């Protein structure tokens, strides 16, 4: 039995709705469905098998989008002989950068790496104090300047300190910034030029909708992003933003933030995401 055109269109639009409802950006969802339609073209299915066949093909495309070469964070750090390993955290306002830095530090310290924080958000009210509280709670050295200081200078200082003291990892906290703010994107570029990070991590909110594409694109063209951490996955997020971002800039999602405590950081799993999206 050849593909029933009308039934196919019906099923495809149902699946497109499922993708959209799981927060995959509109253009990305549309592309996935039209590619899917191409793949199914000319194939023969029994009417009763059609839905299962589409679902299997869709799952395959989602896996391909997420299947990106990625080494574990710990392995990346071990591979770099010359200390310190520098990680720059960037993203738009309020996504959870500062909290995520604390979580990553806890995880790394649990695996035997020593950490230093760079308080390079020198702009926002209470930003340095917030990171300072985390540093105190975790027993991590914090390098800070006065509020309003040059963020790149703080990063530089932290790296010099880490080098002098033989610390393994420097985690640089930066101010949130909108992808539309050219001046702040320039500031971020400057921090990266000075700090020469080994890893640039984009911290995104798992509940983000269509803006995820624009954010990922603009941040990636300003500073080359190496990996992504998606936060607030515990807020019933379907996590489609992971697909939107991976599809757009072809970089791997390394971790998910799953709560507000230091232990709420899990390695990203494509299986979890596919289940959320396709049920």
């Amino acid at each position, binding site marked *: 039995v050849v593909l029933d055109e009308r039934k196919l269109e019906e099923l495809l639009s149902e699946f497109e*709705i499922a993708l*959209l*409802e*799981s*927060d995959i*950006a*509109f*253009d990305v969802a549309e592309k996935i469905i039209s590619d899917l339609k191409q793949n199914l073209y000319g194939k023969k299915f029994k009417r009763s098998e059609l839905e299962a066949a589409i679902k299997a093909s869709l799952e395959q495309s989602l896996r391909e989008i997420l299947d990106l070469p990625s080494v574990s964070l710990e392995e990346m750090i071990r591979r770099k002989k010359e200390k310190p390993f520098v990680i720059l955290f960037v993203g*738009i*306002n*309020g*996504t*959870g950068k500062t909290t995520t830095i604390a979580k990553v530090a806890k995880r790394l310290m649990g695996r035997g790496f020593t950490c230093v924080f760079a308080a390079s958000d020198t702009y*926002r*009210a*209470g*930003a340095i*104090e*917030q990171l*300072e*509280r*985390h540093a105190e709670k975790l027993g991590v050295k914090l390098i800070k300047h006065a509020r309003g200081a040059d963020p790149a200078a703080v990063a530089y200082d932290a790296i010099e300190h880490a080098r002098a003291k033989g610390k393994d990892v420097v985690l640089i906290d930066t101010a949130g910034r*909108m*992808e*539309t*703010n050219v001046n702040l994107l320039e500031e971020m570029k400057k921090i990266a030029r000075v700090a020469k990070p080994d890893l640039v991590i984009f911290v995104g*909110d798992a*509940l*983000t*909708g*269509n*803006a995820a594409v*624009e*954010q990922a694109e603009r941040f990636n063209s300003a500073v080359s992003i190496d990996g992504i951490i998606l936060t*607030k996955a*515990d*807020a*019933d*997020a*379907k996590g*489609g*933003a992971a697909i939107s971002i991976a599809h757009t800039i072809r970089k791997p999602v390394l971790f998910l933030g799953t709560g*507000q405590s230091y232990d709420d950081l899990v390695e990203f799993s494509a299986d979890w995401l596919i289940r959320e999206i396709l049920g």
Partner: protein
Amino acid sequence: KLGESLSGVIRKITLAGMVDEKLVREVVRDIQRALLSADVNVKLVMELSKKVESRALKEKPPAGLSRKEHTIRVLYEELVNLLGGGEAYALPQKARIMLVGLQGSGKTTTVAKLAKYFQKRGLRVSIIAADTYRPAAYEQLSQLVEPLHIKVFGSPESKDAVEVVREALTQVGKSDIILLDTAGRHKSEEELFREMVALAEVFKPDEKFLVIDSNLGQQAGTQAKAFNEHIGITGVVLTKLDGSARGGGALSAVAATGAPIRFVGTGEGIDALEPFDAERFISRLLG
């Protein structure tokens, strides 16, 4: 002869009708694309486009409007209705205003912005900082409002938000506006939602504003519904509209809470707050 020309006219009208229907369908598809890529809830988009399509096909376009222009005008009307009909907000002269919302949505920053907004209009403002979870939350709020010389009540050491509010209310004196900042929370954090209910019971707010990040996607409606079911939301503030997000989630929030959008945040600075303008919001939404 007559029969022939009549059948010609009938055929033309039928053809035009078919063209109109096709045209309306195409416009509606464009509308769906615009709304979906602006984060409007999928089911809401489907409902809206059905309504628009049926009205656009049934109604005759007013004089001077093409079928396409009429369809867009119908959409505008439906959206304005959804947003609560666009009545101007009579700014309260005396009120207790509680701000709630998801983590990182912009509550603390919005409290500071509202404080300046009311103060500029001659009202005496007090602030209660009741986020007892987030490290340095009290410091953040204090620093933000420092130039306003407004007292921020709170206790950086306390772990009991309800007690902080109770204590603050005994000291707040002759304030016209009392703003309450609370910790971020989402509907699966049951204990935090219980705390929110307790805070509302102690504070007895006149206004309960749900602060929503305009980057929020399809979960906006579900979360807004939960906040509304627990404490009853009376207003929505949409933040971070200075980004590329168009804030379609706000439509679901309004639909779920029955509360109008009162203000929009357009930047990090304390002046970056504007009263909500439905026309401007809708034209930006439609891209």
